[in-house]
């Protein structure tokens, strides 16, 4: 049942992703990509679980490394996207 349920979610999310992204203008391709990349750092949520597996040092080390990598991905990804987007200005806001 779990497998069916999870696959169900997967398929719906993929369709949703296609719908959401297919209309993005070329101007925003880079921020879109790095913004999506930041979202892929969601593995962080899974990394906590791994870091907390009790009674196994190896698992905890792997989990800790996963937390580090995923945090780089999340923090770096969102900040760099924000930095890029802050530069996209409309004609009106540049006042020219």
């Amino acid at each position, binding site marked *: 049942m779990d497998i069916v349920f999870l696959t169900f979610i997967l398929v719906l999310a993929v369709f949703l992703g296609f719908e959401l992204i297919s209309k993005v203008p070329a101007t*925003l*391709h880079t921020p879109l990509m790095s913004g999506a990349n930041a979202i892929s750092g969601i593995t962080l949520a899974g990394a906590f679980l791994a870091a907390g597996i009790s009674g196994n040092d190896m698992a905890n080390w792997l989990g800790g490394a996963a*937390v580090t990598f995923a945090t780089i991905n999340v923090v*770096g990804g969102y900040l*760099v996207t924000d930095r890029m987007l802050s530069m996209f200005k409309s004609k009106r806001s540049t006042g020219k």
Partner: protein
Amino acid sequence: MIDLIANFSYIVSAALFIYGLKMLGSPATARKGNILSSIGMLVAVVAALVSDGAAFEIIAGGIIIGAAIGLLAARLVAMTSMPEMVALFNGSGGAASLLVGWATLYQSTDAGISGFTAFTIALAILIGGLTFTGSLIAYGKLSEKLNSAAFVFSGQRLLNGLLLLAIAACVYRFCTDPAADSVYLYGLLGLALLLGIMAVIPIGGADMPVVISLLNSYSGIAACAAGFAINNNILIVAGSLVGASGIILTNIMCKAMNRSLANVLFSGFGAVKVGKAVEGEVKPVSVEDAYYILEAASNVCFVPGYGMAVAQAQHVVKELGHILEANGCEVSYAIHPVAGRMPGHMNVLLAEADVPYEQLVEMDDINPRIENVDVAIVIGANDVVNPSAREDEDSPIYGMPIINVDQARTVFVLKRSMASGFSGVDNPLFFGENTRMLFGDAKESISGVIGEFGS
């Protein structure tokens, strides 16, 4: 109870991701969209921490180190180095998924590990590992630490085929007897990392937009696989959203080069077909003459390429655009989808130089009215304006959609020398009747023209 709350929080954060991605679709709302999506991430992370977090020291340590690295990297990176930065972030996402998949094996359950879970763990390790090393190679090529040309050797396909077979065998053996100390697990780890290297080395610099978007997609799929391995909804939803968006971008990039994904990934852009040799007379122009022509122009279109990024010329380009506008001229910036080294590369650089996004036009918008353009200024672009793609059936880039600058009234090409573009194809544009070559460093040439306007 805590699980229930965590799962409801995941629903909230999934909604925020979806809405945030939707808002990323328009320049006016994009920044808010990114913030919404980051709030979604915060909600998911807090929920996961509350429901699963046992080892707070390890987690806190990892978060502090990771956040510091991410913060510094995001702050310090120059806009021109954005492609390699995105590649590195992709790589760390892939590595995280690999590690999560691997660590899950140590989770002791009474029932052992089911075949399905083992399979998803194997997938997380495979895709995560390939994303990690693939991204590192892409980083090396983009930052010019490695030779950015395609690296092809004889027997490469055979070797890659064997590699894939070996991986399939490891996955199969691992799934039939999943254990944390399985030899096949370590085999899979090594082979996955090797596959990432082998997959990216045969891809040349100009095809990087495809690779970056593909790796982006992989990092999402890896997160998705890790989500299956640990039975976590939000990883699956967020991972597949990213996977889908990466695939769409990859597809857009491939279309813009008129090549199939398979062709980009496996061909290494061999210069097998040689187009007609182009002969003719090149007409150079001096900075002063360029000034006189531009001064009289009423419609100017800049066509930037990777060369603009290399010369860091975006600011002077913007300055010239501003002067021309003050001179009563209509100015636009035509951007080919694969100009530069990642999707939307040129747009980011011009945005950094304060060009309002209304002036950035896409290829399909500029081509129908290119005949009304008095002067098209090509800066560091080559293949994306090469008329051979339209006219010469023997040309390797035949069929690739281009910006038809040769149909503008006058074309200035800013170029260091007469070397051909990345694809090694001659460009008849340089010999065109209405083409004037402005030789030298793009930044200096444009500064020179700006100087003429000032005097």
